[in-house]
């Protein structure tokens, strides 16, 4: 150390630096306030999750919460009066049967299907569909890319339950009662394509795609099939 450096050290000892304050109590108080706040926030979140879970488990409350919402390009809406509709084939309104290549070209949607593929496919702009056979029953698979296609599902029967389904980024299971399916055109066109009574339905969003399965499978079977499709 040079003489100048020693002089600087000496100068440092003669500076007017106030005695160090004892920061312990103030630091501790701020930390504990934060810990209490975080605990309260975690508790509030847990209470909220439980409350929503309970609400979704009770049909009247669940119906109020789920009166109107979107999953990807699908809108589900509860209405007081169902539009007129009748029982029709699963593929009614979807156009003629096509090969996979033609359906993908016509819809602009490459099919995601990790299961044996059927021979016939259906297409509309932004939508590709196929009828699968699973556990001895027919199930309509429809896949929507982005927001190109609108699908409105309206239902009124108190017997129809709508509940969250553990699949994709968000899924919903609709079962029981009468509910009506309406296909709509893209880009704000209110062009009604088909209206029919629908069966049990599983709808879920995954990535930039919305999936819809419809048929007479129960929820566990439909989830099993849904997960297999996007595996």
């Amino acid at each position, binding site marked *: 150390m040079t003489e100048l450096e020693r002089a600087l050290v000496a100068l440092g000892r003669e500076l007017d630096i106030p005695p160090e304050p004892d920061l312990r109590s103030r630091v501790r108080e701020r*930390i504990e306030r934060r810990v209490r706040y975080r605990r309260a926030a975690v508790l509030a979140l847990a209470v909220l999750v439980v409350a929503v879970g309970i609400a979704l488990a009770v049909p009247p409350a669940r119906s109020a919460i789920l009166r109107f919402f979107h999953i990807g390009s699908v809108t589900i809406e509860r209405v007081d009066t169902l539009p007129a509709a009748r029982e029709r084939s699963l593929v009614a309104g979807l156009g003629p049967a096509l090969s996979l290549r033609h359906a993908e070209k016509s819809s602009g949607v490459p099919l995601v299907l990790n299961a044996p593929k059927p021979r016939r496919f259906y297409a509309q702009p932004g939508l590709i569909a196929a009828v699968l056979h699973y556990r001895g029953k027919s199930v309509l698979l429809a896949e929507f890319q982005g927001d190109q296609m609108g699908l409105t599902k309206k239902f009124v029967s108190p017997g129809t339950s709508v509940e969250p389904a553990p699949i994709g980024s968000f899924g919903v299971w609709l079962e029981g009662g009468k509910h009506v399916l309406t296909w709509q055109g893209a880009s704000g066109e209110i062009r009604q394509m088909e209206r029919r009574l629908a069966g049990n339905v599983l709808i879920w969003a995954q990535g930039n795609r919305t999936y819809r399965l419809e048929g007479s499978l129960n929820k566990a079977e439909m989830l099993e099939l849904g997960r297999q499709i996007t595996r």
Partner: protein
Amino acid sequence: MGRPLDESDLIGRAQRGDTHAYEELVYAHQGIAFRTAYVIAGNAADAEDAAQDAFVKAWRALGRFREGAPFRPWLLQIVANEARNRRRSAGRRAHLALRAATEQPSGDAAPSPEASLLSAELRDALLAAVNELPEDQRTVIALRFFAGLSEHEVAEALGLPEGTVKSRSARALERLRESYD
């Protein structure tokens, strides 16, 4: 009675949410934290706030603290940031001053060997020269000689390579030598 906890034990316990363990860390480092903040910020109120905020931020960041790393340089980096932010927002340079007692020493206190090296005139001139240094050089000198940090700790506290600290220090000492010689 168990052995006193060493620093890594205290850090481990604090990381698991033990506020008493963290309080011991605060106690162990509050002196150097305050002094570091003071020589950068230049006044007691800002230094106290900076040190206090730094301890709270360090607590929040403990989860990212690397196990086995020294706590002091990591903490001092947070302290230095807080103090510099306060100095900048106040829009003024830090201006260090001598203790009044130094100018009129009491008869009881024997001067330290280093203090006896400096005459009152030389002390005033040297401090004035330090206060006149460019801010980046003044901060390095203040941390190195007034806060008592090693060159490595100064580099860590300011987030600079050690070579930069050495060169700033060398340039500052060259300027100060003109006042001292």
